[in-house]
Every structure is written in C-alpha cells, then in structure tokens.
C-alpha cells in the first residue's frame, strides 16, 4: 500500500493532546463542533486517531509560509 503522507498534496496531520485542544479552542473562542471536520476513514489521518480527536494540519500555504488549521475527527 502506498504511503499517503508522502504525497506532496498531503500536509502533515498531527494528533493533539486534550490540553492542546483546550488551548486551541480557547484561542479561537470556538467549540469543538465549530471546527472543520475530517472523516475517521480519511486516508491521511494517523491510524490512532479516534472520533472526537482534533488533528492539527500544517499546510504549505499559498499566501504565507505555513498555515495551521485544525479539524475535528468525525465518524
């Protein structure tokens, strides 16, 4: 099977600890469900990700060097 994370279209997906999630939610003043979503079955997700987790995605941005976004893992 091909290693999806190696593809240049796929940015890094990193699982966040619960404390980090709280920090993020506090910074943007949003609730978990306000975040963009990502499916549990998404091929780019780390294997250990579970529904309810939040992943941090570091994109190579077109408008700045790096853009950090967060997605909530949903079923």
């Amino acid at each position, binding site marked *: *099977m*091909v*290693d*999806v994370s*190696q*593809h*240049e*279209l*796929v*940015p890094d*997906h990193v699982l966040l600890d619960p404390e980090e999630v709280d*920090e993020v939610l506090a*910074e943007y003043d949003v609730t978990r469900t306000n975040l*963009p*979503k*990502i*499916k549990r079955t*998404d*091929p*780019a*997700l780390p294997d250990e990700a579970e529904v309810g987790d939040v992943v941090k*995605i570091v*994109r190579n941005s*077109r*408008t700045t060097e790096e853009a*950090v976004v967060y*997605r909530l893992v*949903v079923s």
Partner: protein
Amino acid sequence: MTEYDHVTDDIEAVVEATELPARLKDEVYEAIDRKAEETGEVTVEQATDIATGVENRYVETRVDPLDPVGTVSAQSIGEPGTQMTMNTFHYAGVAEIDVTQGLPRLIELVDARKTPDTPMMTVHLEGEYATDRQKAHEVVWSIEATRILALGDVSTNVADMLVRIDLNDDTLLERWPTHSDPSEVAGIIAETIEDSLGVDTRQSGTVVEFGPNEPSYRELLQLVERLREIVFKGIEEIERVVIRKEEIDGDEEFVLYTEGSAFGDALDIEGVDASRTTCNNIHEIYRNLGVEAARETIIDETKNTLEEQGLDDVNVRHLMLVADIMTNNGEIESIGRHGISGSKDSVLARAAFEVTVNHLLDAAIHGEYDELDGVIENVIAGKPISLGTGDVDLRMGSRVVGDD
C-alpha cells in the same frame, strides 16, 4: 517565559498586550530573542516598536469585521467567469490530450461531479524510470489498457466456426518487456481469453484459435465482440498514455499524461512516483489521499482553469475560500442545491436559491422555524442584514468636543 533567554517580563507584557494570535506572538518572541543574541540586548522600547510594527501589519491585512467574504468571492469568481469560453473541447497545452476547459470545467469543479467529463492523470516517475525511455515505456504499458486489436489481427472463419488471432511478435515483446519468448506471452493471452470468455483455446506459436462451445453463428460473432473488450494488460479506464520529456527543477525527466483515470491503481504500479502523481478527479484524490489533498486539488484545478483563460488576476484567496467551504465537513460537498446551499439551516435561504415551492412546502409539512439570522432571510423580510454596517450598533456619548 522560560524558552527565550532575552525576553524579559516587561517585553513579554508588551507583546502579550498586542492583538496578535498566539502563533505570531511566538514568532515575535523568537525574532526578539534572535536580535538580542546578535546585538546583546533588546530594550523594551525596541521590543515595543517590533511588536506594534507586526501588529499594524497584521491588523491591516485582516479582513474587516463583518465583511461578507463569501459574497466578495462569489463576485470575484463570477465576473471573470462571464468572460470564459463556452467551448467545451479543445486540445490543452500539454500532450495533445483533450481536456475540458473554461466554464464547463469550472462548473464541473464547483458541482463536485463524481467523474469529470475528461478524466486524466499526470503520472510522474521515480528513479531510472524517469530518465530511461525504455523504462518509462514499461510503465506506459502497465498503465495503458491493451486490447486485442493492438496486439494482432483477428479473423473469423465462419466455415469452421473459429476465431483466429495472429499476434504480432514485436508488439508482444514490446508490451511484455519481462518476457523474451513471444509464444510465452501468447500463452498468457490465451489463458486470459479462456478465463474471460469461458471457451477452450488452441495455441501454436503466436497464433491463438478458439470457437464457441456449441456451433452457432450468433455465438461466434458475440465472442468476437467480447474479445475486443478484454483488457490484457494495463488499467481498464486508461484509454491512452502520452509520454513527454519535461524539464523539472533543471532535470529532464519523462512525464506521462493519461486519458482516463484510475488514481488508486496507478499509484501502486512500480516505477510510478506516488508522491507527485496527480489526477483531475477531485473525488479520486479524496478517496486516496484524503480531504486535505482534495482541498488542495480544488484550488489547483480552479486556479489553472482560470489561468488557462487568461484570468490569472483572480486572487487565490477566493478559490481557497471555495475549496475550504467545499471540504469543511470532511468530505467534498458541491456548491449548489444538492450541497452547501441546500444544507443551510434557514428555510427562506434555501427557498430563495432554487426550487422555491418544494422547500416551502416541505418546511410547512415539517413545521420548520426560521430564526431570520442570515442575509437572505432578512432581505426577504425587509430588515437590515447582519453584515457590514448592518450589524453595527452606534453608541454616542453626550460629551461635547472641547468640553474638558
């Protein structure tokens, strides 16, 4: 703040007081720290200058509060869209492959069609496959669907109820480079025919013969029809592959362009660089690489479509917004009745878009409520909309200027 040696409590207080988001604050700390490392010290005044400088730039580049970014994007893509060609087909710049362009392609993208009109892949190769023409051709043959007519001549002998295939030696060896004996390859082909048509074959050298199990004229003709459909090598969906030598980052390498796409299958083929190969079907990208890659592809494809038409001054942020919205819920949603616009909470907003009566009828049957928070609802109701100045309350003090 322990991470930075030269950031004092005073400097920290200054930076923390700015409106910057946490990530930019960290960068400011880093910059101050680096500067202090070089020059010995950064005073609080200097730090204040740095922090306010960064803050000013940040505030300037922000979208104004209550700015209707979606509407601005819609206009900014829609107006250039009026100048696009309505012609569906013409040959694209690369590799003589027909690609849908212009308005039809843009519509296809925002509609998130399951399969594009003209699916194609750009296959990059790795290692020596990319530099050696012979090796590159090996990959071509394992991608392009090889059917019987490409391999030899088919003739029907009605008198003996036989189909006879005269395979071409050179073609066989060319397409099966790992074999050196044409009759060996003919054996593989005969086996494939037996498996897919359910008939017995006779093979001598590179000639393969077979007939219907029961003598029947109709059966014979049908066998020939079905024989033409069998894919002996390659991927069924790929009709044609064009090989081109291109210069990428100063190096020359072979790149394959395919008519038809089967992204998942192509990535598994030996010699294919699975880190750079792409295709123009956003759903195939989504299935194989995930939602983030799909978002990236939507931006790329819409951007290229606009650029191809000479409309390259559309700001990429508008396209990024479109891609963000389309991938917001973790899968690709189309923009329109069946996607984003159809899933709005407000009944009136949905009714205002398309199929008005159906939406109102459904809403009446289900006893739906409308909170009237959105723009369209308030336009319909004749109230100020909650955007721009419409959502700002003005407060005035009673103090007269010069009163102090």
